[in-house]
C-alpha cells in the first residue's frame, strides 16, 4: 500500500492503495466516482477515459502511481452544471442511447477540442475511433463535436 496524492477535479486528493491498482478502480471504489466505466480492461473501448494533465487516457490500464502529483479530471469534474460546450452539444443533439460509453466519449471529445478547436471528420475519426459505442451513436457524436466547436467559436470559449 502506498500513499498517492493528486488533484482530482480541482481538489487535492490522497489515497492509500496498491500502487499498481488502475486509476479506474481507485476512482470507482476508493473515491466513489462512478462516471468512468469499466468496459474492456485493455485500453480498447474507451469507456474509462479521463484526463490526466489534460490528456485523454484510459484509466483501466493506468496504474494509480502514474497520477501522483498530476491533475485528474473525470466526467464529474468536466463541469458542475453541464455547461461545458461538449456537454451542451451532447444535450442538444441527444447523443446517448444506453449511455454507458458516453462519459468516455465526452472526455475524449473534450480533449480533442481542447487540442484542435476546429476538427474535421477525419480528425474526429482519428481521435474518437478508440471510443466504442455498441448502440452506434457515432454519427451523433460526430455531429455534437462539430456543434460544440461552433459554440466554442461563437462564444470564444475553450474546451
Amino acid at each position, binding site marked *: 500500500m502506498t500513499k498517492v496524492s493528486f488533484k482530482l477535479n480541482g481538489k487535492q486528493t490522497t489515497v492509500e492503495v*496498491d500502487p499498481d*491498482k*488502475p486509476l479506474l*478502480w481507485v476512482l470507482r*471504489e*476508493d473515491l466513489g*466516482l*462512478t*462516471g*468512468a*466505466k*469499466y*468496459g*474492456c*480492461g*485493455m485500453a*480498447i*473501448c474507451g*469507456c474509462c477515459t479521463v484526463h490526466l494533465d489534460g490528456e485523454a487516457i484510459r484509466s483501466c490500464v493506468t496504474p494509480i502511481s502514474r497520477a501522483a502529483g498530476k491533475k485528474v479530471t*473525470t*466526467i*464529474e469534474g*468536466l*463541469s458542475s452544471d*453541464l455547461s461545458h460546450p461538449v*456537454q451542451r452539444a*451532447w*444535450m442538444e443533439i*441527444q447523443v*446517448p*442511447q*444506453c*449511455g*454507458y*460509453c*458516453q*462519459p468516455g466519449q*465526452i472526455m475524449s471529445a473534450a480533449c480533442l477540442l481542447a487540442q484542435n478547436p476546429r476538427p474535421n*471528420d*477525419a480528425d*474526429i*475519426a*482519428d481521435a*474518437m*475511433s*478508440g*471510443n*466504442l*459505442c*455498441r*448502440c*452506434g*451513436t*457515432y*454519427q*451523433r*457524436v*460526430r455531429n455534437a463535436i462539430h456543434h460544440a466547436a461552433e459554440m466554442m467559436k461563437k462564444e470564444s470559449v475553450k474546451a
Partner: protein
Amino acid sequence: MKARVTRRVFLSSSLAAGGGLLLGYSISTHGASGFLRTTSPQSDIPLNAWIRISPNDEVTLISSQSEMGQGIMTTLPAVLAEELGADWNRVKIEFSTVAPAYRNPRINWQFTGNSESTTGFFELMRTMGASAREMLIAAAAQRWGVRPEECSAENGRIIHRTTNRSLKFGDVAEAAAKITPPQNPRLKSPNEWRLLGRSLPRVELESKINGTAVFGLDFTVPGMVYAAVLQSPVHGGKVSSFDKGPVMNRSGVIDVVPVPNGVAVVANQYWQARQALKALKVVFEGGENSNVSSESLAKQYRAALDGNSWKTVKTEGDGLSAEQLIDKFGETYSQEYESQFLAHATMEPMNCTAHVADDSCTVWGPLQGPELAKLTLSGMLKLPPEKVTINRTLLGGGFGRRLLVDFVIQAALVSKAVGKPVKVVWSREEDMQHDVYRPATLNRVSAGLDKSGKPVAIAHKVVSPSILQFVYAPAVTEDNDPSCLEGLMETHYEIPSQRVDFKLLKVGVPTSVLRTTGYGPNIFAVESFIDELAARAKQDPYDFRRSLLKDGRSLKVLETLAEKSGWKKRPAKGVARGMAYTEAFRTHIAHAVELSVNGNLVKVHRVTCVIDCGVALDPDITRNSIEGGTVWGLGVAFKSNITFQNGHTVESNFHDYHIAQMDDTPPIEVQIVNSSTKGLGGTGEVGPVTLVPAVANAIFAATGRRYRSLPLSRHGLTLATNL
C-alpha cells in the same frame, strides 16, 4: 386490441407503491436527474398501477420496461402523461417492480425485448392514462357539483371550462382514487396529441452526460461486497477442483464460492476479487463439448442442409419443394447464404447485485427479464415469490443478453454463501466467452422463374440452432423454434408458391436472442437472393422489387427510399448502390447503401434508410435507434465474428471481436414514413436487418462479386469508410 382496466390492475398498484430502494428520475426544465430514493412515499395515492399522485401534486409515472438505450422510459411514460393531461416537465418516472400488472399484455409476461415495448404497451398506456384522467375529472366535477363533460385535464390541472375554475391533480387525487376506474375511457385522437409524435428530450439524458446515471455496475448498497467469477472455458463444462487456500490470505478476500459452472472470489472490493481470481488455481472438466470447433460446427450445418428429415413449416399455393421446382420449371435458381455467430458485447459487462437473507432475496441489476429472474430465484432459494424483490438499474446495452438470468443466479448464490449483499461483476473476457450467441445459420433459397425472370415459386431451407430456448422455452419444441423462421413465414413479395423447410440444430455452444433474432440471417438470405434474381433478369433492383410488391406500405417505403437516396440518378464514377427491403418486428424498412470498392477496401459513402413503424411516437428517439442499428449492421456485415475451438469461444475482448467504430461510420439519413397508429412497429432491432443485405448488394453492384457468407472480412474485405 382494447386494454381493459381491471380491479387487478388497480390492486397491484399497492404492490408498486410498497417501497424498497427504487431507481427513479425526475424531469425539470433543465432536463432530468437520476435519484435513488429509499421508499416510495406512503402518502402517494395510486390511481392505478401506473400513476401515483401525491397530495402535494407530484405525479409519478411507472415504467415497466427496462431502459437500455431505446428511450422507452421516455416514450411510454409520455403516452401515460399525454392521456392523463399531466405536466410533462414535472412528472417523476420510476421503474416498476415485478407484478402481473406490468406484464406485456400480448404474452402475459414481464420482459423488455423483441422490439415490442411500444407495440405491446401503447394501447394499455393510453387506456391507463385516460382512465386516471377520467377519475380525476369525476372527482373534481363532484366537488364543483358540475358535469364531468364540462371539465378537462391539462398541464396537471382539472379545468371547469365554463367557469374557468381549476384544481390541481393533487387536490383531487384522494377522492379520485375512490372512484371505480372507467372500463372504456375516451382516448385522445392523434390530432389532440401534445407530447406524442414530438421529439422529447430523454428523461435520463442529463444523468448520462454528467456521469450520475446509475447502471448495474454503479449501484451500491451499504455493506455490499464484490465477486469476480471464472466459468468453465468449455461450454457446458464444470469445475472439477479448486484450492482456495492460497488466495484466502490476500488483502480483502472474504471467500471463494462455487457457482454452477465456475467459481467466484468474494472480496471487499472488486479489484481485490479480480486480482485474487487471477491467482486462484481452478481445474475444469470440459465434458462432452470439448471437441466442438467452428470446423466441426460447419460440418454439422452442412450435413443438416444436405440431409433429409425436414420439418415443413410453411406452404402457400402449391408449396413446391426445391426438388419439385427442378421437375416443374425448366429454369430454376438456387443459392446458399450463411450468417455467423455473434456476441452481444454490451458495453456494460454482465453484473448483478443481490442480497439473500434468511427469508428474502432482493436484487438490483441491469435486467431485461425481471419476471424470469423472480421465478428462477424463488424456485432456487425456495422462497415464496413475494419474498423475492427485483429492482432494475439502467442497462448499459441489452440486445437480448440481459433477458437471461445466469448472472443473477450467481449473485444470489454468492450472497447466500457469504451472508452479505454481493455484486457479481464479469470481466470482459468472461462476458464474451460466456455469452449466449446469435446462432449461425445456413439457408438455401431456390426459385422457379417465369420467362421474364420473376420468381413464381420459392423454397427455403433453413438450418439454425434455437433462439428462444433460454428466454421463452414454451415457444420451443423438439423440432421447432418460431424465432428462427422470422421473415420467411410471411413476405410481402407476391410469389404464388412458397415453402419453408426447417431443421432445428442441436449444437454444443449456447445460442439465444440477439438484436434482429431470426430476421437478420433470413432477410440477409432473402434480400440477397432477390437481388440476384434482379441481376439475372437484367432489371434494376428497385424496379424488380416493385414488380413483386402490391402492399401499399411496402411500396411507399420503397418509393420513399428511391426518392431520398436518389436511386434513379447515376451515382458518381466508381460508386455503386445496393438496396434491401423487408417488414420485420411489424416495421417496414428499406436501406440504400452507396459505396466504392478499391481492391479489398470498401468505402461506404452514404446510407439512406426509410421506415414505416406506423407512427413514430418519438421521431428523434426512433431516428437514433435506426442510426444505431445501421451502425450495428456495418459491424455485422464486415467485422463481427465469434469462433470456437476445443469447446470454448476463441474471441475474448474487443481486440479480436470487432464492432463498428467511429471511423467506420458514414453519413446516415433516416426518413420516417407515418402510416397509422393501428399498426405500430418496433424500431429497436430492425435497423441492421436490411442494412446487411444492402451492403452485400451494393458490393455486387460495384464489383460483380456476390458474397453469400458473413462477415465480409472472411473474404478479405475491409470496411474503410474514413480512409
